[in-house]
Structure formats: structure tokens, C-alpha cells
């Protein structure tokens, strides 16, 4: 499995103003996200257990949380660029 994205590279340029170039350190958020993720996994596990005991067909919240995290990790390498006459925005997930 890939590591989660570490840096969000954001560049905003416009003819009227100085261009802004930011490296947002996403890795600083991951310790907090890890805590939330563990909490969400615990809640999902309990919910799935209850749903399973009640005989419900859908009891995949734990897998949903795990797959969401995996999808988040796959965002590395994504690039979004927008430009018009006034502004150019360039966002890269690294």
C-alpha cells in the first residue's frame, strides 16, 4: 500500500498580484488523522458487529473506512490545474 500524500503543492498566479507558491505539509496532519482513523475503525467494527448479529445484509463499514484510507493514499500524483485570463491555479498532491 502507498503512503498517504505528504505535501500539497499549491501555486496561484495572477498578472495583477505576485504569485503565491505554497508547500502545505500534509504529513503534519497525519498523526491527528491516524487517531481519528483508529477511532473510526473501532466505531465501524462495533457497528458491523451489531449489524451482523441483527442479520443485516450490509455490514461493511470497517472495509469502507479501510478502503477510504487506501483511496486517500492513491491521491499521490494527482494534479489539478485551472487557468483563465485573471488567475492560474496549480495544485499537485505529492
Amino acid at each position, binding site marked *: 500500500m*502507498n503512503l498517504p500524500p505528504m505535501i500539497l503543492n499549491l501555486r496561484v498566479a495572477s498578472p495583477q498580484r505576485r504569485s503565491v507558491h505554497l508547500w502545505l505539509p500534509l504529513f503534519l496532519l497525519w498523526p491527528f488523522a491516524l487517531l481519528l482513523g483508529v477511532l473510526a475503525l473501532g466505531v465501524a467494527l462495533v457497528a458491523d458487529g451489531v449489524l451482523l448479529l441483527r442479520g443485516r*445484509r*450490509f455490514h*461493511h*463499514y470497517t*472495509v*469502507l473506512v479501510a*478502503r*477510504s484510507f*487506501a*483511496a486517500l493514499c*492513491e*491521491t*499521490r*500524483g*494527482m*494534479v*489539478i*490545474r*485551472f*487557468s*483563465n*485570463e485573471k488567475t492560474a491555479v496549480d495544485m499537485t498532491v505529492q
Partner: protein
Amino acid sequence: MSEDRSRILNLLAGGKITAEEAERLLDAIDASAGAAAAPAGPAIQGDPEPLIAALPKYLYVKVLAANGDNVDVKIPIVLVRSGLKLTSLIPPLAMDKINDTMSEHGMSVDFNNFKPEDIDELVGGLRDMEVNVDAKNGDTVRVYCA
């Protein structure tokens, strides 16, 4: 001896076909048997890494609007696959709401039909996909994998 082969030899023995015709028929049977026994695709020999590296890794969406707004998005294909796999795990109630909202906006896609086993095939098909839209007003949209 196969049933077809013995039938041809019986026809030859009975004088109903000539030796040349029998030979041609037997060759045709051999050719079709050889094709059936052949593997579905070419066997990969040697190191498969260069072939894997040559596969497209990103889905590109490029929109060039006539009014000057340009959007350029590069999405890892692995993210597309993960996203599609997530749809099969969305709770049914939420899925119904998503389907209703999509149909309200003119997109009648039923995400209940997205099965995990079909997703790899779908993503594999995306690699060969290319969408080019040239609108009358000058807007162009390009979607492709590279």
C-alpha cells in the same frame, strides 16, 4: 481418431469426395484444433517490468473553454480503481440517494450495478479509452489515459 476425421475418411472410402478434398478438410480440422489449443494471449517471456512500466498510469481530463477557462486534471488510475471499488461499499440508503440525485441531474447511472469483479475490467477498458469533444461554441474536452 476424432469423429470428424473418421467421417472424412469414410466419405473418401465411399468415393463421395476426392483425395484432394479429403486432404483439404483434414488440414482445416488440424488448423482449427491448433487454434483452439493455443493460449488466449501471447506468453510474456523474460522480465515483465518494462511492459508494466509502459501501461498508462494517469487519466487526463483537459477542458479548454472558448471563454478562456482551462481545466487540466491528471488523476492516477489507481485512484480511479479505488474510487470505483468504494462505490460497491456505500451503504444501500446512501446509494439510493446518490442514484436519485444523479438521475435528477440527467445522469441515470445505477451505482448498485458496480460489482467489484467488473471494476478491474472497467479500469482495463479505460486504458484504451479516448474521448474528444469539440463543441460548436469552441469548447473542447479531451479525456484519455497515458
